[in-house]
């Protein structure tokens, strides 16, 4: 539900976000006697909260890359500076067995290219809970299925998350669902069944897939012998039928492992064949992930995930696309004819532009809480490696949450690889980002 052109609304939101951020004092309390006024935290029927953030980004563009050529051939530049303000509001109204929950987000930004703004309803749903065993939901809701941190092969009705920011809120889909839970004694401690009906009509979940279908998804969860296990199924005309299973388990007090496996049937895909022509194929694909999370005595957390995307493009298929863009660019420069260039642009939207378009990836995240004896200071590093072409992105970052309700993050990302490799052909060469967020 995107409201385009709401420049006045977004400008006002940006203005208020800035006001909130700059005129509220950093709330550090002085030492003193302990006090706890519990009445202050009594439950209320209407509650709201959220955050305001401002972000500055400086981007050095990779002017030799395929996606730079596709996106900037008419407006060449080597850097972009961008200022963004965002406001996210979350609210809930509870009465009896019902609750209405919502998440709204507005964002406005100004960069060297121009102004952009958006206002979105991320969530708006009615939830009925007649007993602890049953919940029924209807409305716009976010689904996040699977155990993976950076990727979720079994997230059949999820929006894909950004592996560099997997904990950020995403926009939901309209749907209706029922959730049943049963606790048991013995090795099988919990069984839960979640079922969702997800329609795709004009103006309703249009970006999910083919129009005029009602799709169904179900997840059966079990906690069996201290292991989380999910069986997932999706069926409907908007996307092909798919099956999945995932698990997660703690092997020790500081060591967790998880995995996901998905089998996608009848995937239709366009790709550049060996002859360089655009070819259609229909196939089944296996997508899986295996990961671990390990914590050392010195509070260093490491997350490693191997991700195989059987629905992605092979190394040679990606190379052919990058070669096509290079040829199209040469033709455009030499002759002024942009036929090949427009073809490359169209083909880029057939999957080649997606964040991880290849087959095999390694995700690595490491951070240390309270590093250098500074409480709430968390330096870290995120790396994503394309195992097929050896290109990668690396993002060192520093996070500070020491001021109550404030979060300050400084991150630098750089991308490297040989020519015609995935991360080398992306638009950015590097990006410096500073984000300040205030929760209220």
């Amino acid at each position: 539900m995107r409201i385009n052109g709401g420049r006045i609304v977004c400008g006002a939101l940006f203005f208020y976000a800035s006001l909130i951020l700059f005129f509220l004092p950093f709330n550090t309390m002085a030492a003193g006697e302990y006090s706890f006024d519990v009445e202050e935290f009594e439950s209320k029927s209407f509650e709201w909260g959220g955050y305001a953030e401002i972000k500055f980004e400086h981007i050095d563009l990779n002017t030799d890359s395929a996606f730079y050529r596709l996106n900037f051939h008419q407006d060449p530049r080597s850097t972009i500076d961008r200022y963004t303000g965002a406001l996210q509001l979350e609210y809930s109204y509870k009465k009896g067995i019902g609750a209405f929950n919502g998440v709204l987000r507005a964002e406005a930004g100004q960069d060297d290219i121009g102004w952009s703004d958006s206002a979105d309803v991320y969530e708006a749903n009615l939830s009925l809970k007649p007993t602890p065993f049953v919940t029924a939901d209807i409305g716009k809701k976010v689904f996040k299925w699977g155990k993976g941190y950076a990727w979720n092969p079994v997230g059949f009705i999820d929006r894909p998350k950004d592996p560099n920011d997997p904990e950020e809120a995403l926009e939901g889909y309209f749907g209706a669902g029922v959730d049943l839970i049963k606790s048991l004694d013995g090795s099988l401690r919990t069984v839960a069944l979640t079922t969702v009906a997800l329609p795709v009509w004009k103006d309703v979940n249009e970006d999910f897939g083919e129009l005029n279908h009602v799709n169904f998804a179900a997840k059966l969860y079990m906690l069996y012998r201290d292991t989380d296990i999910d069986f997932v199924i999706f069926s409907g005309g908007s996307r092909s039928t798919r099956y999945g299973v995932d698990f997660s388990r703690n092997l020790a007090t500081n060591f967790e492992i998880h995995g996901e496996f998905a089998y996608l049937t009848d995937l239709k895909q366009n790709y550049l064949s060996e002859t360089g022509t655009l070819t259609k194929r229909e196939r089944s694909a296996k997508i899986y992930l295996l990961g671990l999370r390990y914590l050392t005595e010195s509070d260093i957390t490491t997350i490693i995930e191997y991700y195989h995307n059987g629905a992605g493009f092979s190394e040679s298929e990606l190379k052919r696309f990058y070669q096509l863009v290079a040829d199209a660019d040469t033709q455009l420069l030499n002759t002024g004819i942009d036929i090949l260039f427009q073809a490359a642009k169209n083909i880029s939207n057939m999957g080649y532009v997606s964040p991880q378009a290849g087959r095999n990836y390694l995700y690595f995240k490491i951070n240390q809480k309270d590093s250098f004896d500074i409480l709430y200071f968390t330096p870290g590093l995120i790396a994503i490696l394309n195992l097929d072409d050896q290109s990668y992105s690396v993002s060192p970052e520093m996070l500070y949450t020491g001021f109550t309700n404030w979060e300050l993050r400084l991150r630098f990302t750089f991308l490297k690889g040989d020519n015609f490799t995935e991360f080398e052909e992306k638009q950015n060469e590097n990006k410096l980002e500073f984000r300040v967020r205030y929760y209220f």
Partner: protein
Amino acid sequence: MIYGKVSSKPLKVFFNFLVQMTLIMLLVIPAAALDGNEILLQVDRNLQPESYEMYRKLINIEPDGSKKEYVLYTVKKGQDKMVALFLSPASEKGRATLRLGDNMWLYIPSVGKPLRITSLQSVVGGVFNNSDILRIDYSAEYNAAMIEETADKFILDCKAKTATVAYDRLTMVVDKESVVPLTIECYAASGMLIKTLYYKELKGFGDGLRRPSVMETDSPLYKGYKSVMLYAKINKKDLADEVFTLNYLPRVDELR
């Protein structure tokens, strides 16, 4: 003669004396006859009912005296089921942690799904880790042996029942009169002291529950830092088992 009627007067006097002494012993030092595990069970019951709700405030205090506070609503059932919901600060509001035996999960509203966490991680930073915040009954995790008894204290050596327990060994000093802990030293399997917990300020919470209302902790790993937990509104509460499941985590607030 022993099992029959006591007819001799001196013997009767002696027998009465023996009975009275036994009764006095039982009344004056009731726990003296208990073994370590029985004391640990009594400690658990004196700290909280088996099924309850409560509010807690966690305060992390830095060496310069500055503080960061968190408020949690907590429900517990049986020996090993517990949920804690963050009510404050705003940056943490809505986060919920669930513990089922050795299993722990963290639900972050923006993430939208529970993530498995481990007991040695800390969702709040500071000296408290997840196992401190989601502490289930001591007797569920430890076998205790009495290593010393003084006029007013029991000193228990508690050994973790499994390798998945956060602290391999505890040295617990228990107040004889109230049968609640005074201090608990927490050790890793290597023998390293990880932290010390100090229970303070005995207070009545109603319904016959009288227990420390403050728990402080410090750690040689966090020199100069201190974390404090304040307890309020500990009430018995009947809860369905289904409250302690991943699917229920997004709606824990509705229990309040």
